[in-house]
């Protein structure tokens, strides 16, 4: 670029310099010519001055000779006074001109003329006779003629020189003008062309550099750039180097990532195998100890066996919790978050804690209102958190105390569950420490069993489900733990086992009809709107009988009792998830062969794969496509026709 820039600047500059130097040279020549002309002109002037001097002197002396009047001699005397100076001027001019010979001759003649004039004057002064004076005058005239001719000769050369010089100077001046104009035009043209050339070249290369910079940003291979040593060349080179550095860094990062992934997999594999390796011996310890426990044992032996069992179970809990914590920390922990109704989970947890609470005469009071409150959570982990909170509330309570559970919505986005005890409480300074792993605040000195991981794990679960677990305490009065989770839309809660026959008029939907002929369909669905849709649709197929139930448990009972030809199953059911219903249907030999079609909004590929693997006949997404539903029902009917006359399914219990 620098070179090009120089060229761009230099092209007009060279043109200008060329023109200027040509112009200067011409002007120099002109000056020479002028000087020559000037010298020639000086010679001419000097010669004419000397001639004038001679003429003046002769005229004066001639006048004096005719009149003998002395005043006529004035010009002669004046000439005498200056003739030497004028002759010196002429000599100098002639020397400068190099016209020395002619000048010497003219000077000699001048001297002779002046001598004659001096002689003539003295003859007049002496009163010489007229004829002598006339003869002298004639002779003087001849001398003057010679002198005039010689001066003419002397001035002829310089005159020609002066004229010729003037011509040359005029021509040179025109030439200089022409060269100057040409130079200006040329310089302008060269400048414009240079800039255009430069700009197009630079712009093309800048474009390539910009494209390459973009490609570098996008991680694509760069366009090839011809090597160049100017700034743009260096820029292009820098981009190429940057690409190489970037590629090297990317390779390093990929390496590091692969290494991290390998390490993570190794860690996960380690955890998984640790989990297995630790459980295998525990399995034997607990298994044989349980067998021992069944035997007839003496009091001390029984006590020993019970202690082994308790310690073994404690160890097992510890292992499970440590592995859970490690999984959460390594990011390998997976949750299945879905809308979960809170109260059933609270109920299950209370049930589990019942015996322990009863041992210590502690009463557990469950929340009253808000039966449909639901949160987005992993049901199993929510259960684990609540069991942990409840077990703490029972263990760290005073004998005969109470545990109070409440649940409520916080605004529209969150819901909370609180577990409050009436124990000694926790000092404010320790309220956060209790969430640190293995921090039992001295409880290890007491008889209270615990691993010290329960609360940290519960908090980790809560946070993994985008919730919070916090504690407040009034020392001496009790402690309150608050679990906050994202709220889900309220879920209708239907007592389990309550079969709900779709309330659509018409004899064919009456429950008794299920036992009759034709296609019998069992729809396990808790949403009345969906039941209504399917019920109305089935009016177009009068041979089909529909029974609907609103819970999984009721569905299982109905399926086992009636052995329908097709089961339509919703996945989000209160109490028991559709997957569990499916599993139990499959596990029960009586119902294992009934085709099951799942109707659900959970249409992720993983869910569908899972269901297919579980032997589901069809999967229909909600909102229901009625044409699809029709096809499904018709093919089930066709299958039923094909099997008509084949032995009926084995009734349960046989």
């Amino acid at each position, binding site marked *: 670029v620098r070179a090009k820039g120089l060229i761009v600047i230099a092209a007009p500059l060279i043109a200008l310099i060329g023109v200027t130097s040509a112009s200067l040279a011409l002007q120099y020549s002109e000056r020479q010519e002028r000087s020559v002309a000037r010298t020639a002109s000086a010679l001419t002037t000097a010669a004419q001055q000397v001639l004038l001097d001679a003429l003046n002197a002769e005229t004066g002396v001639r006048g004096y000779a005719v009149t003998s009047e002395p005043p006529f001699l004035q010009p002669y005397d004046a000439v005498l006074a200056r003739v030497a100076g004028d002759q010196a001027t002429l000599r100098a001019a002639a020397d400068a001109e190099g016209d020395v010979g002619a000048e010497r001759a003219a000077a000699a003649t001048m001297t002779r003329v002046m001598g004659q004039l001096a002689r003539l004057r003295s003859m007049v002064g002496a009163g010489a006779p007229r004829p002598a004076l006339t003869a002298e005058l004639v002779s003087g005239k001849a001398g003057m003629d010679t002198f005039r001719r010689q001066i003419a000769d002397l001035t002829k050369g310089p005159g020609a020189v002066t004229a010729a010089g003037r011509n040359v100077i005029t021509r040179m001046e025109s030439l200089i003008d022409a060269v100057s104009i040409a130079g200006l035009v040329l310089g302008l043209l060269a400048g414009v062309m240079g800039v255009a050339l430069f700009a197009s070249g630079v712009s093309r290369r800048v474009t390539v550099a910009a494209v390459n910079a973009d490609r570098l940003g996008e991680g694509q291979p760069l366009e090839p750039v011809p090597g160049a040593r100017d700034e743009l060349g260096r820029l292009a080179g820098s981009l190429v180097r940057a690409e190489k550095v970037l590629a090297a860094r990317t390779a390093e990062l990929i390496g590091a990532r692969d290494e991290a992934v390998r390490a993570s997999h190794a860690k996960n594999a380690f955890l998984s195998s640790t989990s*297995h390796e630790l459980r295998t011996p525990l*399995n*034997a310890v607990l298994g044989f100890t*349980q067998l021992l426990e069944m035997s007839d044992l003496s009091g001390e032996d029984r006590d020993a066996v019970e202690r082994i069992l308790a310690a073994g179970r404690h160890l097992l809990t510890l292992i499970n919790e440590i592995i859970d914590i490690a999984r959460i920390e390594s990011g390998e922990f997976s949750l*299945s978050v879905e809308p979960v109704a809170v109260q059933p989970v609270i109920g299950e947890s209370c049930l589990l804690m019942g015996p322990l609470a009863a041992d210590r005469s502690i009463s557990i009071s469950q929340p009253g209102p808000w039966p449909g409150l639901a949160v987005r959570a992993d049901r199993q982990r929510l259960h684990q958190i609540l069991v942990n909170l409840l077990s703490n509330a029972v263990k760290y309570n005073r004998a005969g105390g109470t545990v109070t559970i409440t649940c409520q919505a916080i605004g529209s986005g969150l819901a909370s569950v609180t577990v409050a005890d009436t124990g000694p409480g926790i000092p404010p300074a320790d309220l956060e420490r209790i969430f640190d792993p293995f921090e039992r605040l001295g409880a290890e000195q007491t008889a209270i069993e615990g691993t010290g991981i329960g609360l940290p794990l519960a908090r980790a679960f809560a946070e993994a489900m985008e919730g919070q677990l916090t504690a407040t305490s009034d020392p001496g009065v009790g402690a309150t733990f608050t679990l906050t989770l994202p709220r889900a839309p309220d879920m209708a809660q239907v007592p389990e086992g309550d079969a709900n026959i779709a309330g659509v008029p018409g004899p064919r939907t009456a429950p008794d009809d299920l036992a009759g002929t034709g296609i019998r369909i069992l729809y396990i669905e808790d949403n009345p709107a969906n039941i209504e849709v399917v019920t109305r649709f089935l009016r177009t197929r009068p041979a089909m009988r529909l029974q609907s139930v609103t819970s999984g448990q009721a569905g299982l009972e109905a399926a086992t009792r009636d052995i329908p030809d097709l089961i339509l199953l919703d996945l989000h059911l209160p109490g028991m998830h559709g997957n569990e219903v499916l599993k139990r249907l499959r596990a029960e030999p009586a119902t294992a062969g009934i085709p099951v079609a799942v109707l659900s909004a959970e249409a992720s590929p993983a869910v569908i*794969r899972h269901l297919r693997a579980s032997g589901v006949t069809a999967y229909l997404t909600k909102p229901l496509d009625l044409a699809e539903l029709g096809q499904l029902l018709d093919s089930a009917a066709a299958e039923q026709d094909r099997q008509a006359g084949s032995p009926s399914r084995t009734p349960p219990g046989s």
Partner: protein
Amino acid sequence: MNDSVLYIDDGPDNILVVQRLLRRTRPDIQLHTASTGRDGIQAAADVQPALILLDNRLPDTSGEQVLRQLAANPATAVIPVVILSGDSGKVTVKELLAAGAADFLAKPFDIHQLLAIIDRYLP
């Protein structure tokens, strides 16, 4: 249906515990055992047990593979399979249930829970 249970596990201690447990509490049940997936699949076809207890980790294959092979064979597809495993990771449980497992019991299992499951499948 007969009164036999097939237990597929490579741990001798585990098998011994179940053997003694059943001998002591359910003497009518005949327990068959296998220590590899291959043997277990063969035994399932031969014995036609009322219930299969399957360890998730086997020397030659995974419990999930055994499940799929049992399901693929019409002779064994209807036999309920309960997974007994030391790894109670939720994903694994889901996968196994998806693969057709009837139930899941984490090891070390409580012998009363194991008896409850056996009672559920054996009349």
